[in-house]
């Protein structure tokens, strides 16, 4: 059975079925979508279980020639690098559907688009052919645009167009970069595994790096190409925020790690110091901006910018531990930020505001939500026992030898994270109850299920990191061979 | 004087130039269509001329000319239909009064 293709296309198939479903009741659609994403998640877990952690090459490879004349094939497969992201995407998509329980506006279209989005993202992580990678990269755009543009907040059109234009500008550059790679050697191919290890002239590498990196730095997002992110998050519906921050941003880091590092290693080495500098700017800039936010979603969005800075730092270090830490940080941040956006969504559903300043003392009305939020905040500020600590610590350990000053400065981000996260929870939940919220409801059971599920995963990875590290180690180890050290 | 390829081509070029001039200068849509037909025929002349002088053993030039005539007929029918519709809507076939392509 082509397990990987099943995971990639099951949501799309479900979207097709949903689109043809004649029902009018929103519950039909959300139940069907939940079933489809849940099923996909189970399949991805099965993939995870079947994955051979001792085999460093691509596994579950499926190859179907598509346009043989230009060497373009439907080529998918997973290795230790992509596997965590495939599972992460499936998990967060499931959580996103569960977090959309209250969507009543055009539910059919909503869930159809959400499912197509899942196919697009999973495809990006599964694709082992550059053209296919690009294809899936673009597939994800359309549903994202519509989801923000139709189900978003008051400035949804501005945010949606900004998101799409930014990403498209990046992907245009990436397409050129991919084509340069395609034409740079014989035989011409888009297959990633055949492109790896090719000798490409240094100047060409630099050009390719700049072109493709632009697409990824937009997605990551890196300063100063990040301003689409807060807008998109603030306007996007909860589920879309979860996927956006949880997995879409990771496509940037994943891309740098998958495409740039193995394919243009000399350019990577050349640009590594610049990347490290960018990383530090990201960490501090994002964290400082968090201190000035009062909109919870903006705060979490800027914290994402800060946390993705560690990813960049880990990659820039070009050490096994740094790269492992970067992947770990991406996975961990996926869980944590997904959880945070779900929480913001629940709170918004109940209180219809995200303004931190308007809350106060909510713990008396919503103890369950307070507990979950506190745990999420602790995870976000990198407390030991949670996945965030393991990831950030690994990044620091990995990057210190290469960039001691950069690393030392970026540890300040950990302190700032504690500052804004604790400030947010304190301001919302502790102190005397703001009378405005005297009849606020606590989170319902169905809202708590995905929240506690994610906390469980965060704790699991935080307490027993080998769950993830054993897998990603493989991807990293393979990479060190190409880098030759 | 013997008829040579150059003569045919000059005739074709002249016809084409007349056609272009007509298509660009006339305001009446029907007249523009007529001018376009002239351009088609200029091309046909060139085709036949080449067929006669360059590769008489093949019929490719003649076949192309017949193709062009057929396509031109279809095109003319279509274009005249459009002109008819325009006239019904606007009571005019003056192309300067018609700027539907403007942004």
């Amino acid at each position: 059975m082509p397990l990987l293709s099943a995971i990639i296309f099951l949501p799309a198939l479900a979207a097709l079925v949903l689109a043809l479903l004649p029902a009018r009741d929103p519950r039909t659609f959300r139940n069907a979508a939940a079933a489809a994403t849940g099923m996909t998640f189970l399949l991805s877990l099965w993939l995870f279980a079947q994955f051979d952690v001792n085999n460093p090459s691509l596994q579950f490879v499926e190859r179907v020639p598509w346009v043989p004349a230009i060497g373009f094939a439907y080529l998918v497969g997973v290795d230790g690098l992509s596997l965590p992201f495939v599972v992460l995407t499936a998990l967060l998509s499931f959580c996103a559907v569960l977090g959309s329980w209250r969507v009543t506006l055009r539910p059919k279209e909503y869930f159809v688009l959400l499912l197509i989005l899942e196919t697009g993202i999973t495809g990006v992580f599964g694709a082992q052919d550059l053209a296919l990678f690009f294809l899936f990269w673009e597939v994800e755009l359309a549903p994202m645009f519509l989801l923000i543009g139709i189900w978003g907040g008051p400035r949804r059109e501005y945010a949606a167009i900004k998101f799409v234009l930014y990403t498209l500008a990046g992907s245009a550059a990436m397409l050129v970069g991919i084509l340069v790679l395609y034409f740079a050697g014989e035989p011409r191919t888009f297959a990633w595994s055949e492109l790896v290890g090719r000798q490409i002239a240094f100047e060409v590498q630099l050009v390719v790096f700049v072109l493709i990196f632009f697409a990824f730095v937009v997605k990551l997002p890196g300063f100063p190409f990040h301003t689409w992110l807060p807008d998109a998050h603030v306007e996007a519906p909860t589920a879309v925020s979860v996927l956006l921050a949880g997995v879409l941003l990771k496509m940037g880091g994943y891309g740098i790690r998958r495409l740039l590092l193995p394919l243009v290693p000399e350019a990577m080495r050349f640009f590594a110091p610049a990347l490290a500098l960018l990383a530090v700017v990201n960490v501090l800039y994002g964290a400082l901006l968090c201190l000035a936010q009062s909109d919870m979603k903006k705060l979490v969005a800027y914290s994402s910018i800060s946390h993705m800075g560690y990813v960049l730092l880990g990659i820039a270090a070009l050490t096994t531990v740094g790269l492992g830490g970067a992947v770990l940080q991406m996975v961990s941040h996926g869980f944590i930020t997904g959880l945070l956006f779900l929480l913001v969504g629940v709170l918004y559903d109940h209180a219809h505001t995200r303004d931190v300043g308007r809350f106060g003392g909510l713990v008396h009305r919503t103890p369950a939500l307070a507990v979950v939020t506190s745990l999420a905040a602790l995870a976000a500020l990198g407390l030991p026992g949670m996945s965030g600590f393991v990831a950030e610590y690994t990044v620091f350990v990995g990057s210190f030898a290469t960039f001691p000053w950069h690393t030392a400065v970026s540890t300040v981000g950990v302190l700032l994270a504690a500052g804004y996260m604790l400030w947010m929870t304190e301001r919302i939940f502790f102190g005397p109850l703001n009378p405005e919220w005297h009849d606020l409801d606590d989170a319902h059971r169905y809202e708590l299920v995905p929240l506690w599920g994610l906390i469980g995963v965060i704790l699991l990875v935080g307490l027993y990191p080998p769950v993830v590290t054993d897998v990603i180690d493989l991807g990293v180890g393979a990479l060190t061979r190409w880098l030759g050290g | 004087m013997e008829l040579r390829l150059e003569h045919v081509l000059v005739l074709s070029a002249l016809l084409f130039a007349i056609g272009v001039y007509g298509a660009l200068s006339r305001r009446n849509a029907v007249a523009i269509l007529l001018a376009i037909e002239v351009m088609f025929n200029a091309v046909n002349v060139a085709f036949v001329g080449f067929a006669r002088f360059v590769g008489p053993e093949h019929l490719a030039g003649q076949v192309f000319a017949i193709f062009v005539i057929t396509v031109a007929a279809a095109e003319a029918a279509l274009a005249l239909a459009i002109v008819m519709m325009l006239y019904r809507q606007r009571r005019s076939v003056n192309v300067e009064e018609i700027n539907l392509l403007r942004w």
Partner: protein
Amino acid sequence: MVEVAWIIPALPLATFLLIVAVARSAPRLAHALAIAGVGAACLASVAVLAEVVGGAHVERIMAWFRIGQTVFTVGWVVDPLSAAMLVIVTTVSLAVHVYSVGYMHGDAGYARYFAFLNLFTVAMLGIVLAPTLLQLFVFWELVGLCSYLLIGHWYRKPEAAAAAKKAFLVTRLGDLGFLVGILMLWTATGTFVLAEIEAKVAQHALAPGFLTLAMLLLFCGAIGKSAQFPLHVWLPDAMEGPTPVSALIHAATMVAAGVYMVARLFPLFEGAPTALLVVAYVGIFTAFFAATMGLVAHDVKRVLAYSTISQLGYMMAGLGVGSLAAGMFHLFTHAYFKALLFLAAGSIIHGAATQDLREMGGLRRVMPITAITFAVGGLALAGVPPFSGFFSKDEILASALHAGQPVLFAVGLATAVMTAFYVSRARLLAFWGAPRWSASAAGSPGGSRDHAGHGGSADGHDAHAAGAPHDAHGHGAPHESPPVMTAVLVALGIPAALGGLLLGPASGNWFAHFLAPLEKPLPFDLGLAASGTAAALLGLGLAWLMYGARVISPEALAARLRPLYVACFRKWWVDELYGFIAARTLLGLARALAWFDLEVVDGVVNAVGAATRALGRGVRRLQSGQLPAYGLAIYAGVVVIAALVMLGPR
């Protein structure tokens, strides 16, 4: 037992999980579980200590996770240092647990309180047993978390929530240095295992300057956790937590972690004498500095908090002058007498419903056991022989003199005078003189800060109804605390009074030999002991003249030394400085950057968009819709292309 020493933190961890799982709304079950967990850990610790005294020494390292060739290691180490610390931590924690049964009775967050108390103990035990820097850091951070949770126990009070946050953030500021220090050592040695790093340092494999910097950075972590200057500001505010928590923080867990860390890394510090000297001077300065603030505080818990900072300074000074035994001995004696003092203060607060010294007075008649035990703790703190504090403080001062640091010795002696003065002042103000409370006014709103919290903890219920059990008798006349609390006081009184003598001179400095067998013991110096005793008696006498006999008017003295008094009272404006840095500088920078992000960065993005649209608006004028114009353009294009093709290069 030493082979399974991991069970010591595992036991309270198990009970913590049990309380969270099953006893969230069963207070009796919760405290039973919590005490059972810590009690069992305490017994196990004693067993471990016995084995270590018998010569056992165990170090077990295992992989937590690995990436490539890099192994992230954890494990446990049982040696004299950790064994002694295990017993100190578990006994004090057990005392606090038992005491809390009485003190926290009727609190709405009772089960939560005990669960976190357990977790706090777990975290501290994790530090004690840590054989690797990674594990040390992990539990170090968890200690910070637990202090956050417990200081913020009465989270309805904004001050409590703010104090909890402050404690977490200030200590984390120090932890940044700690983290970078760990990274430096890891980069230089490629391992997190302390023993291996120590071996490398012993071989002089690290450049001296590098090692000094790394150790100073590591010491930053200790500065934060052990509330040394300039990161001492969180500790006085941590008073917002329940008093038994303060006892735990001040005696055995949180602040002791910093001192313990320096002791644990002592072989590394010995490789960096400059760093050790910094430790000594930071310590002695902190001791002096904190004592000045203790002289004038009105809040009994704050007086004790400053005394903690000051005593921690002594410990650091002891370690800094190169005597592991002296520093750790003071940590040991201090753990018991400070726990005793805090729990006695809690007893006052419990019985008199105030923690303001100005609202007490004459309490010794109504709270005799509390009065006596407080006096014992006070004398130990003041360093009056034969109470425990005398011997440990004496050892530190002797070590300072021996190490050729007369300045340290002199400042330490001056601090000893102040120490004796302020603790005596607190005792006299609280227990002697005429009562400044009346039966009806005792529960007045202004005076019952800690107890206001009892109401505040009423989770989701009407505050007054749920807080009633405490306030009900709090409103009456002050009274002695229930036996469960006073029994603990008496139990702690024994080590506070005799611990120093028994493990010090009486047993031929057993403690010092046990912990640091290689350290050469200092001969007993009668002159030194006499000067220490004289300093203590001077402070006591001065306090008696001012607050007992009222021969010297404190008010008049304060008025004459007004600038000094104000500076001490306002805590030398360090809080204001931090407030300025945090509120003005940092938030100002954040706001400026927010403006920059919105107006400049995003402004450029929007400008690019606007420019594109403007260009489009301009260019679209070419689209006239005139068919002939289009035709002409096409024709012109054809001509140009044709010309290029014909005239261009072949």
